[in-house]
């Protein structure tokens, strides 16, 4: 598998993503600078977390306008899988690849901690190594992860299995108490129609190494390598 990591001014999980990919693929992902308008042929594009352009105005909005994003949208339209994590998710909604918007957390505070997620389905390139309804533990770290979409969009997402992960408690129950940011329906990540683009607030790349406290994130990268090699 060949993978790219997009780097914006202010990205700060680009190295973390690079390391997680490298460990899973046994080769080097390419780091692609936001100002480029071209990108080598890759099987996976990742848009990492951070504070692109300081998250000023709206998280992800300025990054969504950078030259490389035209190419990302272009490839995504052709079916190249795209994974956006945290700020990357925000960039994907701002660029129109994913519906809805990520608003300020309901409690208005930045929140960094492990959360539990319920994996909806494993019929995607991202989740093949998980089982449906599997409970996983992955950290979040964001100020603007409060997923919003209009009712019609939400219904469509749920009805067509496009909610990738829901926040849940340690028993797997999707409850308000387990929702760390006020996201509608406890949504932690969503797919595009073809399920080739995934945006998620939690950081799988941060728990892909036992010494860091867990490996639940690793399965996503292993799954991608298996599906795309």
């Amino acid at each position, binding site marked *: 598998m060949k993978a790219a990591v997009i780097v914006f001014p202010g990205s700060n999980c680009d190295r973390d993503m690079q390391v997680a990919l490298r460990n899973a693929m046994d080769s080097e992902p390419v780091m692609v600078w936001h100002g480029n308008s071209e990108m080598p042929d890759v099987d996976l594009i990742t848009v990492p977390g951070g504070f692109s352009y*300081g998250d000023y105005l709206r998280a992800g909005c300025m990054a969504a306008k950078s030259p490389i994003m035209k190419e990302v949208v272009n490839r995504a339209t052709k079916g190249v899988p795209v994974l956006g994590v945290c700020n990357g998710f925000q960039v994907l909604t701002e660029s129109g690849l994913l519906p809805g918007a990520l608003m300020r957390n309901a409690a208005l505070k930045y929140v960094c901690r492990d959360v539990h997620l319920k994996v909806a389905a494993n019929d995607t390139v991202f989740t093949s190594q998980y089982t449906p309804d599997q409970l996983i533990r992955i950290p979040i770290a964001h100020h603007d992860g409060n997923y919003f979409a209009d009712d019609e969009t939400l219904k469509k997402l749920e009805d067509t299995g496009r909610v990738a992960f829901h926040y849940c408690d340690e028993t797997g129950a999707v409850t308000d108490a387990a929702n760390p940011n006020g996201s509608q329906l406890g949504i932690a990540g969503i797919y595009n129609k073809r399920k080739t683009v995934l945006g998620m607030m939690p950081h799988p790349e941060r728990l892909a190494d036992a*010494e860091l406290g*867990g490996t639940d994130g690793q399965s996503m990268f292993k799954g991608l390598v298996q599906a795309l090699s």
Partner: protein
Amino acid sequence: MNDTANLTPEITPRIVAEHGLSPAEYGKVLEIMGREPNITELGIFSVMWSEHCSYKSSKYWLKTLPTEAPWVICGPGENAGIIDIGDGQAVVFKMESHNHPSYIEPYQGAATGVGGILRDVFTMGARPIANMNSLRFGQPNHPKTKHLVDGVVAGIGGYGNCVGVPTLGGECTFHAAYDGNILVNAMTVGVADTDKIFYSAATGAGNPVIYVGSKTGRDGIHGATMASAEFTEDSEEKRPTVQVGDPFTEKLLIEACLELMQTDCIVGIQDMGAAGLTSSSFEMASKGRMGVSLNLDNVPQREENMTAYEMMLSESQERMLMVLKPGSEDQARAIFEKWELDFAVVGTLTDTGRMVLMHHGEKVADLPIDPLALASPEYDEKDRPWTPTPKPASIDAKSIPAPNDPLAALTKLMGAPDMASKRWIWEQYDHMVMADTMGKGRPGGDAALVRIHGTNKALAIATDCTPRYCQADPVEGGRHAVAEVWRNITATGAKPLAITDCMNFGNPERPEIMGQFVGAIDGMREACLALEFPVVSGNVSLYNETNGEAILPTPAIGGVGLINDSSKAVGLNITAEGLTILLIGETGGHLGQSMYLREIEGREDGAPPPVDLSAERLNGDFVRGQINAGSVVACHDLSDGGLAAAVAEMAMASTIGVALDKEAAGAIPLHAWLFGEDQARYLIATTSPEDVLNAASDAGVPATAVGTSGGHSFSVAGFSRPLTEIRDAHESWMPAFMGTV
């Protein structure tokens, strides 16, 4: 020269006083200048000789601190201290205060504090890998406290999270003595290659002086003198001098500087901190024994019609000054332009030994560098007389009533503001970005553990100080602060290497305050020597008083340790049932100045627990050895709240309870055994108690089995409490206080 001087106000005694210079100091100014300074020159003297920049009250004493060890590459005097961690790598770190600005504008004050300390570290060529923060607020029910906590924590997070450096730990306590003067001390730890370390000394007449980063505005003019003046009620009027931080620009600046540092363009580099362009250019020239000539027209400016005075004193954030090798400007410029940052050639180094400033084609200042730097005041014992703090009487534990239910007392203690979980704080900090924060070293443990990227090595980092001990006995408190940091690092298995300090005190012109300072330094010095734990950087913040009420003496210590095999590190959580809990160290049941005395008996008195430095060394080295030998499942040092609190913290970190065996108390009253704060102690959870006990006895280290893990309760002497109850008390205080429950 003379025509411009005419444009500036006449230098009256009042203007001199407003610049914080005493008549005697102004006399020296006249002597050095050989004439009256103009306002720009006066401003330069004023900031260079402020307490904040010159350390005039503290220098004399700071020099007594041990600063050397075989692993020290660079001690105090540079932007940050540097220690060798082997394999061609070095750790660069420092702690700094941003107390006054944070009181005036908590969010921006704390944020710019983080920004400033980050710059001190990456200026030396290190990539920042960890931030810590040591916070002191007024009593929780003081009307300002909540607002200050909220703003400070948001500001630290807002800055650190955005630049992408994990904030891994710290301290946060409350006391009425900080009602009008909070403390916000921030520490940054970075990693550099030993052959790519950069210093501030600039050499080579004719070399270009370069300004990079954000533009200069009228921010924080007089920030440095403000940080050196005692607060009065009306100092809130100085508000508009607050600086606003831009962490996004800082992130770009980090990347651009580190990228430039991979080339060999740089001769010297220095961040613009307090007193901005003045102190950075002065320091670079003075350290290299050079002169400097700046053309202020070339300084990137954010506002119109800025004067030379304003530009020289501005504290706009996210700016750096560098001296480059001639001819390398274009290569450097390309890097900064890629990162979308300002880059301007603002001057040249000269061999005149003078600082000459040009503005609009005129010479607006011309002063000698060395005389100004060397003549900066240093107050010795005559100028800053001090009286030692009277030793408090010891309290006999038997005179303190025993609680009816010791576990009710424990539950109350664990929910007291100083003891309660600070999760509310650390969850607002990204403590995992950079993906090297070890699971065992996340916030909540003794020391933060962060891997050196791409290696098996890890750093252990801790900050500590117990101001109530320092208030009662500054010498003992100084010893204790250093020893506790050392202990926190040791409890992870890491070898403590060096410290940075942030000396927060009241008005040094009062002999009793100066006595606290001298005492604390004395205690720190002894501990540093005994523990081979030198001071490599630090910061002094004086005049922390309002209307004559001083803060508790607070010598905050930040320490760094190294563990060569990160897989050997331990955390404090009890991970299994049936582990034996061993208490290492001598227990006497010392309740004077204890958390128990304060929270349960409502008394803040007595002598603090004495720190026996040889016992610290012996016990700590033993514990570290056992951890590295693999005999230890979990380890925690004993501090506030003593044995009972430490056991509770270990149990709460997982869900497994502990039964303590009261027989182990021997003749000590149960409550003194449970809550006494005797020093040099650790708890170890182990599967091989016999081996550890034997080893301890061989080493001459006191060790006793005090309990066993199992169940989900804390029990002792027939009392029992579900862990969930203790945890509720521990976890709920801060969210309830801050109003998010």
